[in-house]
């Protein structure tokens, strides 16, 4: 297990190198002079030259790349062109916001998706199976922005049960410690704020979690069906096991690997920032951060944002791979 972990970590090195090359190239793939493009057409010659100098664009590519990588290795993501602030400082709260939203969206997706899948497989071809799978089909086919708008219209506008925007009420701001507001509220022992934070999470989590939920439900169902007809499940039943033990101990564990793969991929996708959902719910996450950077042509932010998202994606995959080996004793590459 340890050797496998180390080997898996070493395999990250080429991936990370590839990632930095790609993010570095983004600025240089812009047709024409990057500084000119960044500043816009109305920029004067001196302005362009100043920017070129401050961004180090005069140097040869290899030197520029060296500087870029050495900055990254020191944990410096650079400076935003728009706000002139350190990207490191800016990006952390955004990441926390996205992490929090993803956590609750995936929690919703996994709890409902996995259980719906299990019951569908267990009661194969029953009315529950039929409706759950119909619901799952609708779930994957539904555009997120439409679902988000419908939620806002029904639960915020018409019924007024839940807030439609942001992470907290404008009147009662929280003093951030970790920038995970739910966690912060708990650390502050502030029940009221906790309730407010959770209330703000409900609608975006459901909007964001619906597609993963539907995919997880379908995956769990098909994986469970396959496992349930296997020889070893018959053996376990021949030993006198009840359905519950058969399903939740043996079948579920065996059906986990493909489901885990999907969960990992979907988590990665959500963490990459759900631009649509974050925009509709005014959620100050990483997706909106990158989106704003693109509209301002704030290249350092775009570069760093993409790099961070890619890094998260890679890390999630790493965790999933390690979990495989933990679940299945046969996996020892």
């Amino acid at each position: 297990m340890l050797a496998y972990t180390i080997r898996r970590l070493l395999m990250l090195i080429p991936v990370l190198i590839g990632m930095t090359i790609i993010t570095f190239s983004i600025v240089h793939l812009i047709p024409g002079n990057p500084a000119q493009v960044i500043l816009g057409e109305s920029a004067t010659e001196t302005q362009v030259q100043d920017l070129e100098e401050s961004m180090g664009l005069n140097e040869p590519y290899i030197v520029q790349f060296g500087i870029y990588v050495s900055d990254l290795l020191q944990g410096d993501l650079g400076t935003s062109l728009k706000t002139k602030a350190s990207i490191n400082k800016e990006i952390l709260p955004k990441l926390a916001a996205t992490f929090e939203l993803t956590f609750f969206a995936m929690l919703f997706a996994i709890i409902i998706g996995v259980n719906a899948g299990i019951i569908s497989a267990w009661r194969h071809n029953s009315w529950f199976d039929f409706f759950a799978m119909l619901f799952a089909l609708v779930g994957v086919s539904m555009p997120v922005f439409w679902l988000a708008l419908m939620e806002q219209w029904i639960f915020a506008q018409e019924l007024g049960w839940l807030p439609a925007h942001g992470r907290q009420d404008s009147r009662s701001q929280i003093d951030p410690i970790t920038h995970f507001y739910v966690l912060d509220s708990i650390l502050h022992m502030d029940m009221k704020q906790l309730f407010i934070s959770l209330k703000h999470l409900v609608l975006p989590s459901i909007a964001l979690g619906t597609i993963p939920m539907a995919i997880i439900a379908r995956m769990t169902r098909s994986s469970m069906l396959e496992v349930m007809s296997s020889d070893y499940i018959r053996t376990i039943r021949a030993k006198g096991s009840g359905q519950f033990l058969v399903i939740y101990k043996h079948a579920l564990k065996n059906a986990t690997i493909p489901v885990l793969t999907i969960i990992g991929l979907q988590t990665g996708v959500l963490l990459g920032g759900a631009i649509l959902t974050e925009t509709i719910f005014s959620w100050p996450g990483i997706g909106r951060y990158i989106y704003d950077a693109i509209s301002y042509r704030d290249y350092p932010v775009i570069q760093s944002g993409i790099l961070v998202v890619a890094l998260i994606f890679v890390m999630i995959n790493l965790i999933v791979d390690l979990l495989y080996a933990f679940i299945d004793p046969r996996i020892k590459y």
Partner: protein
Amino acid sequence: MDEVVLELKDLHTHFFTDSGEIPAVDGVSLKLHKGEVVGIVGESGSGKSVTSLSIMHLIPKPPGKLVSGEILFKSEDISSASEKKMRKVRGNEIAMIFQEPMTSLDPLFTIGNQIIEGIRLHEKVSKKEAKARAIKMLELVGIPRADEVVDEFPHQLSGGMRQRVMIAMAMALNPEVLIADEPTTALDVTIQAQILDLMRSLNKEKETSILLITHDLGVVSEMCDRVVVMYSGQVVEEGTVREIIKDPQHPYTKGLIRSLPNLHKKEQSLYSIPGTVMRPKKDFVGCRFASRCEFAFDRCFQESPELYSLDNDRQSRCFLHDEGKGVEEFADTNIRS
């Protein structure tokens, strides 16, 4: 050897599929006495596995269903027993081992865990105690370094070892009956002999009755006291091993015995029964073997033969055994060949 442990009376298990109702087990009756080894022999599709799964209520349903008949276990009919009741019977009183040792153990749990789970489902013992028993069972079935194997995973063992584990698991609770569904089919010949020896000694030591399902007459002659020959969902012949091997009565059994390779006869090619097993059909009239039978005559296609009782508790489902209509009588009349 007089107490009947398990008895099937006119058991019917049907599968309800899109292409109609298939009587996979069509009126099977058999008896298993205490300490006895009874073999069920037949080709693929003869219904022998379905019979064994029916006893355990392990038929996948839908599409399978136990339509009628009785399953008497220690004189109690369990054919319509509740799932709750069956859970107490399975593993504890009737245990089962399967054909594919490679896939019959859960790959994600240790050997010990799977044996312990079985023990603790039926008996209130501590984990430690159950583990000690698991190790003892593994030693009993001849697994070397049992105290290490108990913590290993199935993929670390060979096929023969896994089948031993299956047997250890099945025997852990001292069941009255062991149903072995082709336990040696997937193993190579030397391992086969070892596994059969093991089953034989467990049968002797613990007086466990064994219902051995196989298509291998060699295995039958080595292991069994009595044999039931199945064809297309029905019993076609029954008797002691000796008699059936030496003097088969039903044309199908005769064919089976003839197709065994024999070292003493010099033959160019091995005999085989022409055709394939008829898929059981509902409301079929006539003898199911008739189309492949060299003795078939008109009556075989018009009426369904019953199971005729012969001398020495033998039975055969063939019109040749109908009163006064022996082989000789038809030898010169209507034989189609």
